[in-house]
């Protein structure tokens, strides 16, 4: 099993009221599996993704990644875990503005201490069709190009799990389709599990499993 969540609970506090977002949620993602998580706005999809990625701490429950328990780990250990085993793709691309496209892709591997990362990063950029743009800075790239760089970066550390939060949310339909084709192809090629949060039913249908997040838990 690649990624597991057990009895995961998380609540937000707003104006003194406790609003339960996740309530005893369970999830199992097998190695190489693609899972789409759909649900209404505010249903807690992004919250779930942040708990799966160790970006936030649950109020209760556990998250396991490749047999290692994430919950209970400190921030530094969580950061290392993300660097070694996880790739995250954001709706807003979130590239480091002071790094070129190539440097953005090299960054995850360099965080892990790899030195010979340039060739692999160039290959990944070639795979997303951006060889000619590798020395450009994010603000010199279009939205679609930035997201392709973000995908290449997410795959750079050869992660076991990819978490993608509305990756086409900021792109037009055509570019969105192109980017998703690329994401699925690369994930398949590298045998990476993919957890995709989306509003788009078309995108969701391309995953091997679609789960709906409703009232704090996942339903098939």
């Amino acid at each position, binding site marked *: 099993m690649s990624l597991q969540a057990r009895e995961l609970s998380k609540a937000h506090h707003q104006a003194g009221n406790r609003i339960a977002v996740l309530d005893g949620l369970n999830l199992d993602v097998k190695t190489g599996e693609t899972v789409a998580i759909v649900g209404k706005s505010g249903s807690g999809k992004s*919250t779930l*993704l942040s708990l799966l990625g160790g970006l936030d701490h649950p109020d209760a429950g556990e998250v396991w990644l490749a047999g290692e328990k994430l919950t209970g780990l400190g921030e530094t250990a969580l950061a290392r875990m993300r660097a070694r085993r996880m790739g995250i793709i954001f709706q807003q691309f979130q590239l480091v503005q002071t790094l070129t496209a190539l440097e953005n892709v090299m960054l995850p591997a360099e965080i892990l201490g790899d030195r010979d990362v340039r060739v692999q990063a160039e290959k990944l950029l070639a795979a997303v069709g951006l060889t000619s743009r590798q020395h450009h800075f994010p603000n010199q790239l279009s939205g679609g190009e930035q997201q392709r760089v973000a995908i290449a970066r997410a795959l750079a550390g050869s992660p076991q799990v990819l978490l993608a939060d509305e990756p086409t949310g900021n792109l037009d339909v055509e570019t969105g389709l192109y980017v998703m084709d690329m994401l699925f192809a690369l994930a398949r090629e590298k045998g990476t599990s993919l957890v995709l949060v989306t509003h788009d039913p078309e995108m969701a249908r391309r995953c091997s499993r679609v789960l709906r997040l409703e009232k704090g838990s996942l339903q098939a």
Partner: protein
Amino acid sequence: MNKFLWLRREWQRYRASHLLITATMVLGLGGVFLIERLKEAFLSSVRSQERELLSSDLSLGARRPLKAQEIERFEKATQDYAEASYRVIDMSSMLYAPGQEAARLVEVRVVEPGFPFYGSLLTADGNLQLTAEHPLFIENCIWLHDEAARLFEVKVGDELRLGEGAFRHCGTVLKDSTQGFRGFALAPRVYLGRTRLGDTQLVGEGTIASHALHFKLRADAAKVFTTEWKEALVKEFDDPAIRIQRPSDTSEQTARSGKLFGDYLQLASLVALILAVVGTFYLFRTLVHRRLKDVAILRALGVAPGEARKLLLLPLATDFLVAIPLAGLFSAALFPIVTGVLDQLFGTQLPPTGFPWSVWPALPLIFTLVMAILMPSVEEAVRVPVMALLQDQERVGMVPWRQAGLWGLLALVSLSGLAIWAAHSWKIGGLFVAGILLATLTLAGFTLLARWVGEKVLRRSGHISGIFGLMGGLVIRRLLRRPMTTLLTVIALGLGSVLISLLGHLELSIGQEFSLESQDRPALFMFDIQDDQTEKLKDFLAETKVPLQALSPMVRGKLVSVNAEAFKKEKQDALFETREEENESRFRQRMMNLSWASGLNPSETLEEGVDFAEAKVPEGEVALSLEKRFAQRLGIELDDQLTFEVLGVPITGRVVNVRSVKWTSFRPNFFITFAPGALEDAPKSWLAAIGQMPAQEKVQLQNQISRKFPNISSIDVGQLVGRMMELFTRLKKALQLMAVFAFLVGVVVVGAMAQDQVLRRQNEVMLEKTLGISPWRVTLMVLGEFLGLAFVAFTLGGLAGAGLAAVLTVVVFEGNVIWSASLLLSITLGGMILVSIPLLLMAKKIFTWRPAGLLQQP
């Protein structure tokens, strides 16, 4: 659109930014206001004491005995209004205390009964009432100022010798209201009755002494003795030696050194203002960039560019207006602290003052400077490509280079105007702006060069982690690729350290120049040596085996024509627009000290022309040598013909060379030196210098000279140098106070910039944590980035300051350059510690930002 509503919304939405902008302006304006406050307090203090300083309503004076016809003419002009009069003579002489075996130079004030008409001489028993029956006039009494009494360690009743006269110390003056600010005096004062002056035999031919006749006038006299009256009488006398003074002239004169010093302090405060403008520029630009979309929407809705400009500038103008009264309050809060420090340094107690209204002329210039600096950012926003921005592409409009250049020029003109306003001098103001520009260009040039080279290296690098590791690699990329932030931070921190380093290095160079134990520097400098004493003095020194280093004649004369054109004296004590005008006028008015010599002495260097031996001059003329700066100030060139008048006898000379003089050699040196043959028969006195000797022997020799030649004054050069260094150090400390203020403003500005940068980097910080960099490392990277910048800025600023000090030392002081690694290191380390304070306050925030925030963004 309702502008007030817009303004209110603007403040509600961007409260933090406007608060920071206003606070930055308050800091910058506050420094300028504070110095104006100090200057006003100083002037009002001097003006409130102007009658006490002169001690009378009107005086006629000269640095020579007044002639009977001059006194007669003056008395005639004032007879209808004069109620009483007295004479005062001021001179320097040696006072010898036999009990203590101590001889020291003192400033002798010789007075007549009735002195002072205004003010007082305060003693432990109350004010001295100097009637004709006072012991000062009828007994062998001398009164000592407290400073002198302490220096000689004498008690009332002790015996003292002044010139040929033996006196008793009859009392101590604790406070002399006619004395002005004592912080600048080189010798303590003693008081002698005019009736006893003959006993001293101090006044002889060629003795340097100021003679003055003072009048007490009727209450309604002020309307008669106006500036016009004075100018007319001065014209009538037509002698540069004559000086007519009213209380207001005295206060002007007394305030001169204070005003000059205040001008330098104001220039230091301008550095703080410039740093505040840099901070305002950064904060405003950031604010404008955050509002680009708002502007694009307004433009899309049909708002004209002019209207959009107004909407952006209105809040800023409001911030500026709000900052003015707040800066007034800020300067009022700092005033007691700074006056406390000045009191400790100079013993000047300044009265509290209200709002410094004299700052008004500077405010439009400051406003123009701020606007000129900010307008390119406003133009970038107004010219924003509307559709691109509405499609979420962050882009700004292009400002034509010519327009940007014009704004830059306007900024430079307003800064120059401000500097001239502050310095009251075209030259010093211009030098200041040139210095600031040079320092800024050095800092900017280095930053841009580092960026260019760095980017080339980075492009070739195979990975992010270079020799500085991943963290270093990321930090270097941030610094190089956010050039505007890097540049502004370097400038904001660098300029303050330029100033501190400049002052520190100047002090070291000048200190070294003065404290050099040079064999060439005399141990004693002697003056008031009469013509008939030179041989006796030589014999005495030969007997005591003391080396006579130099013996030079001094003749008083006035320059009457240059190339046969009358050399007219100009305004007297009038209000001068600039310092240059004042200096030149003062040179023109002087009675000049002339000398003769067969050639250059060891402290002189030929700059232009030929030595006397090789010079050929027309018949009836004599060869002349002029000091370089003296010649420059009066516009006299090589081969000019100058005519001097010495006691009514014209002597014509031809300038055959221009020489530079090392004044710190403390040898007898003159602005004007004649070749032998012209001045020998003129009435003269002599100056002498005695070579190095052990300290104890020097004291003994000074005592012996004082006993054997009572009219000869001798200065212990070592003590004089010490006193000058002490004064210089005190002035430097006060200037350093402003430099530290400027430095702190820079740190606060950078603190505000860092705060803004950190908030703007929240995403980046969260992203780095998401990608697997530990929170510790992420925090250290942000801190390291600013500390790295601070290191570069302080080091560069320190080096630039040392460079400027080196230029000033060589060009102005003609001394040796000193570089102090420890000073540079302490500037860098001290600065970095200060900068790290606001950064550490932000560290917790950086550390605790949760990366989950990235997923919760819309």
